[in-house]
């Protein structure tokens, strides 16, 4: 009979309408600014720089190796390497970024900078309410705004941060052991045997 299909369909909408008062499954709307659903641990938004210890600029893990700048697909990272070396949080003399800017209007949150970083210095943030009053300067994040403590990283990604800490501690222990065995002032290397500007860097694309 003509019309039964439409009536059946209306039955479905009626079931959904009435069901939305009783079944949680059918009403999944979250009233956003008042309620928030928790973010998953793997959630990523924009990168930030990690520092250890108290002073943001002294404890920065970044050694300005520029790998992330080179690998960033939309080229939103801008780094100027320092001329001198200063001791990092472990006391080894390292280069540091004189300028480290990320243009978050260009960044596409792909996480490639995090994956290529050999020093666990750059990680993905979870902050997403980032609307700004001005288009150019406010969306360009400077080194000072990007630097966040390791405790903050532990707060947003507890599992991953614990893994990273364990990895860094193991690397530091291995380096200390190596130093003790060799008993010579070897070049300070943190995680990888190759130097930051060594063979890992690819030549500029033609």
């Amino acid at each position: 009979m003509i019309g039964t299909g439409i009536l059946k369909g209306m039955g479905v909408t009626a079931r959904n309408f009435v069901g939305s008062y009783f079944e949680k499954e059918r009403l999944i709307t979250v009233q956003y600014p008042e309620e928030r659903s928790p973010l998953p641990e793997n959630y990523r938004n924009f990168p930030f720089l990690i520092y250890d210890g108290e002073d943001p600029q002294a404890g920065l893990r970044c050694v300005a190796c520029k790998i992330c700048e080179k690998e960033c697909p939309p080229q939103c990272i801008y780094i100027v390497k320092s001329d001198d070396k200063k001791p990092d949080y472990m006391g080894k003399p390292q280069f540091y970024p004189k300028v480290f800017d990320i243009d978050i209007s260009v960044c596409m949150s792909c996480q490639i900078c995090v994956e290529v970083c050999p020093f666990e210095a750059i990680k993905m943030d979870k902050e997403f309410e980032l609307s700004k009053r001005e288009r150019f300067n406010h969306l360009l994040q400077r080194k000072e705004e990007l630097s966040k403590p390791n405790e903050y990283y532990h707060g947003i990604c507890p599992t991953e941060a614990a893994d990273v800490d364990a990895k860094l501690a193991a690397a530091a222990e291995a380096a200390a052991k190596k130093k003790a065995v060799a008993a010579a002032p070897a070049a300070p290397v943190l995680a990888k045997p190759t130097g930051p500007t060594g063979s890992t860097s690819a030549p500029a694309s033609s």
Partner: protein
Amino acid sequence: MSATVQTLEAMERPPVTMSSRLEGELLEVSMGPQHPSTHGVFRMNVTLDGEIVRKLKPVFGYLHRNHEQIGEQTTYLGSMPYTDRLDYFCSMSNNWAYALSVEKLAGIEVPERAEYLRVILAELTRLQNHASLLGFLLSDMGAWGTPLMYAFREREKILDLFESLAGSRMMCDYMRFGGCRVDADDNWLAGARKIVDRFPKFLDEFEELILGNEIVIARTQNVGKLSADLAISAGITGPMLRACGVNYDVRKVDGYGFYPRFKFRIPLGEHGDTYDRLMMRALEMRESVEILKQALAQIQPGAIVNPKAKIRAFRPPVGEAYGRIEAPKGELGFYLISDGGPNPYRYRVRPPSFINLTVLEDLCLGHTVADVMVILGSVDIVMGEVDR
């Protein structure tokens, strides 16, 4: 006083040179690019005889982003997040197609668990793509909002799974050469099983809602018929080809990934009209659920990435490769030529929705303007992929 009235009457009278009847004259209408039913910035120059379409010329390029040129400028890894932006409904499938072609080029093996995860994610992508397509199609037919919201409610659950695994709902950027980026823990797999088990319930409800509906039948049956011969000669792939009764599915033909390990059927249409294309999506979702059940039962713990695959300074050997998968919209392929450098010498995408769109004029001729929207909806296009 009376003179003024006469003048006004004279002004309202049509000029004598203009014909008062438009019968027999063809009218050219530009539909789009800001038409709500064109699924993005797509324009059609339609020549109309009354309501009937006599000529249709698609105009592309409003969303052109130079994807292939960018792919030749950035590194192999750097192109991976850009592939998310092709067909932004199915970023996992796009990732897989690109990873597959680079793995072919460089000869990288993929561990077992990663292959299973890829199958699971690609089939979940197919579920959410087809569900939202059916919703959009009904929205184009005038069922505003309601079916689309039901479809989006299911889609949202799958997108939450993607977010908890890959970190982003739509721009997943999940696969890497030689595996996947993050491992799925047991909670994630349990959540996926729960969603897959409940999905048939949604399908039953949705099919009850639409497939017997007289208005849907009247609007879709015998509308936009595509013959198998034309479909084959135009290079149509995906559900649109199978709706014409041609048994061609890259999952069966190529057997890429672990698809030969799973038991599933390929639904085939008979008439090649819009209703068959619509049904094809509903039936494919059921088969995807079957694949997902098998994959989620078979997946074993293990490595998710090949340790030999380098992430920094990746340079494949000189050569060329074409990797293709059955994306939800059809055959998605990436063609790469390597000259041994860090970026491809040639990077070419074979987008399913662009090639499926080429027969749009043949489908629409002789139908009314309102049918054009339904036919366009049943082709399943995403402008991000059409224009690239």
